[in-house]
């Protein structure tokens, strides 16, 4: 008996039982099911939700791998054990030592994220008797990429549980949720454990531990790993070049730093038609627009160097695209089809406002100098409203046609 027929027999055995969804989830992971069409079209396209989600995951892999190396690189750089890498391809960056730290710190995040999230998905599927939907495959990959590398695993587990249950399952699961689940998880972490999500100690592995050691009286140098946004918000000098920002050799959340790899992932998503180019493009335009407005304000002399907003406002408008989590959020989070606008026209408005508000929050929020998370969550809430008005345009056209006829 082959594996195929063995699994088929098992499937028949589980059919109708409570455990069927759990078994099917594993089975369909190995084999495309033997289901045939009935009632409607007799043929179907090759794509299914698994393939769609898998494409997003593939586009995230470069960011994940880069994030692992960067975790080690930032760690050793802060310790002073290595010198600054001279470029993206410098062997100082792509070293085994860096990767080992990355594997050691990042893989557990991935495992906890998937383990907790999928476990909850399976439990809900079994209780409610529906199939395990694939939405969490992407969420589970996004979550470790948007948290600081030293995030304690138990915090992540609590946040994932919160995000999956409150952010998604209570609405009915994949396809029904209002807020992006990955961002719900991050927002939970941010508001529940703010000290672990911002400041200058969390972005580099070892910084927090070192701080504690110093506090305990050990004679060591503190490790500082301020993000560029953090520095700008406090009006400090930036020591990184634009090229560093673009390639990603900077501190930040695990997978968000490399604008070039995010750009690659974004282009891949657009090419495969999985990600919406409308949202990505309009979001970039929105951010540039807001950046230009702030630059204009500074140029007009309305804001002096003494202002606490000066640092971020005077940042060249296009640098905003490279720093912080903006690029990652735009490409991978704003484009989540379930929580974004669903009409093409709506996507333009939705994306533009995300970019616009991201930079606005970034500049004016003193406590937390990144706005893309809150901007996307805010627009998630407004996406149905945007769609409503776009669809009403179509309805009105129909009404007008009727009126012209009867008049």
């Amino acid at each position, binding site marked *: 008996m082959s594996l*195929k027929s063995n*699994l*088929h027999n098992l499937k028949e055995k589980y059919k109708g039982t409570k455990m069927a969804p759990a078994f*099917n989830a594993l089975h*369909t992971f*190995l*084999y*495309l*099911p*033997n*289901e*045939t*069409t009935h*009632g*409607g*079209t*007799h*043929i*179907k*396209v*090759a*794509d*299914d*939700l*698994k*393939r*769609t989600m*898998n*494409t997003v995951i593939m586009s995230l892999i470069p960011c994940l791998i880069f994030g692992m190396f960067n975790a080690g690189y930032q760690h050793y750089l802060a310790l002073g054990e290595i010198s600054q890498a001279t470029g993206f391809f410098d062997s100082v960056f792509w070293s085994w030592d860096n990767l080992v730290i990355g594997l050691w710190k990042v893989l557990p995040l991935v495992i906890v994220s998937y383990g907790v999230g999928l476990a909850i998905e399976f439990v809900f599927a079994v209780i409610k008797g529906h*199939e395990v*939907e*694939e*939405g969490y495959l992407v969420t589970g990959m996004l979550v470790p990429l948007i948290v600081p590398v030293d995030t304690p695993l138990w915090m992540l587990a609590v946040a994932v549980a919160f995000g999956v249950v409150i952010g998604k399952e209570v609405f*009915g*699961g*994949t*396809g*029904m949720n209002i807020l992006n689940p990955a961002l719900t998880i991050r927002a939970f972490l941010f508001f529940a454990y703010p000290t672990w999500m911002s400041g200058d100690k969390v972005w580099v592995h070892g910084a927090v531990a070192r701080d504690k050691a110093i506090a305990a009286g050990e004679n060591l140098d503190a490790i500082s790993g301020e993000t560029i946004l953090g520095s700008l918000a406090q009006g400090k000098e930036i020591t990184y070049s634009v090229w560093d920002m673009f390639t990603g050799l900077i501190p930040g959340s695990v997978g968000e730093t490399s604008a070039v790899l995010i750009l690659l992932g974004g282009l891949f998503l657009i*090419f*495969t*038609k*999985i990600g*919406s180019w*409308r949202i990505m493009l309009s979001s970039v335009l929105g951010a540039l627009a807001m950046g230009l407005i702030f630059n204009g304000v500074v140029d007009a002399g309305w804001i002096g160097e003494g202002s606490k907003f000066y640092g971020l406002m005077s940042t060249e408008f296009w640098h905003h695209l490279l720093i912080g989590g903006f690029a990652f959020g735009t490409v991978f989070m704003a484009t989540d*089809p*379930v929580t*974004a606008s*669903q*009409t*093409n026209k709506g*996507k333009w408005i939705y994306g533009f406002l995300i970019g616009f508000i991201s930079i606005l929050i970034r500049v004016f929020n003193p406590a937390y100098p990144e706005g893309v998370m809150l901007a996307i969550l805010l627009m998630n809430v407004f996406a149905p409203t945007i*769609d409503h008005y776009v*669809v009403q345009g*179509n*309805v009105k056209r*129909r*009404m007008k*046609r*009727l009126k012209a*006829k009867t008049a």
Partner: protein
Amino acid sequence: MSNDIKIKKGLNINLKGDAEKTTENAIISNYCTIRPEDFHSIIPKLVAKEGTKVKAGETVFYNKDAEDMKFVSPVSGEVVEVARGERRRIMAIKIQADKEQTYVDFGKFNLDAADADKVKAHLLASGCWPFIKQRPYDVIANPNKSPKAIFVSGYASAPLAADYDYVLQGKEAEMQAAIIALGKLTEGQVHVSVGKNSNSPLAGLSGITLHKVSGPHPSGNVGTQINKIDPINKGEVVWTINPQDLVVIGELLLTGKFNAERIVALVGSSVKKPRYFKTKIGSEIATMVYDNGVDKDGNDRIISGNVLSGKQIKPDGALDYYSNTVTVIPEGDDYEFFGWNKPVFNKISTSRAMTFSWLNPKKKYDLNTNTNGEHRAFVVTGSYEEVFPLDIYPMQILKACMYQDLDEMEALGMYEVAPEDFALTEFICVSKQPHQKIIRQGLDLMLKEIG
């Protein structure tokens, strides 16, 4: 006068097994089966009980809600079986055909002298009325409502569909008679569409408004054409009719005989030599299919109609009342190892997610009936709009049907659509939602609640 309709949104599904342009006479079928389910929403009242002898054109049953509307036998013979389902619903009426066919003589119809009422009464009595369908609701036309226009699509863009230019050859006289008769039933125009570069016999008819259609499927769907030519508003009714049924109506008017003969394309990748057959409505499929190159032990699906909106029929089933295509494709009831993530070269896809049909848009595919994935909630957005040329939001209207909000369904354009308009969106649906079924149920709900 000719108006061009150019469709940009859509998708041509190129399949293997296109019919070669030769016609054979199919072996005369011993049995003829009429299934009331072909006539959606009609409640049949049986006239010809088991054992009754009928002529071709004689009433078998009529519409319970409109007694004038007769449904007639396509052949002469004896009613041998009335198959009933749950609650004694009539599922099928099986007629054993005579060797020598006899016809009811309805008499040659004087077209010039007839007014609308006379035409209507004649078509209702002779069993030709069911060929006329109406929108809204995509059901047999209500004879008491006059349509604002009548639409005939002479352009078949569905995958492997029979080519109207070919099957209608030499039928100009019949179609002209039918057009004249139908023209009397509407105050508006009779819109006829043909392919842009076709030499359709329909193009030469008088009394029509001709439209030349180009672009990918669903450009040939009559619903697409209505939406582009003269969209339906609330309270309005349009009628649609297949060009091949015009021939049946025309022949009845000219000769007084209900002749159910029809040229049918036998197509699909499981057919060894796909071509056309002359047969009759309700004929058994088996002789035609198995004697002409479909493997009898093969694991195939036989479809009366095209692969997108046809009906699955059993090997001992019969040709649908409205279809002019029989498609046979392989069943896909097998597992595929890592089928969800490995690169795909032999299936069609509108995305490029490791699917490579975009590399070669002209390639012909051998698709089977596998769903290529499981049923899911709506997730992906924006893909339906790429293949949906109607000025309607497809996902929004589908959702409105699912939560049965009548006001919203109406506002979003439910009066304008038929299930077949959603065949392409169903085909490309990543969540494998049954779009046509959702729309059908939505229409039925509206028919029941609003009427």
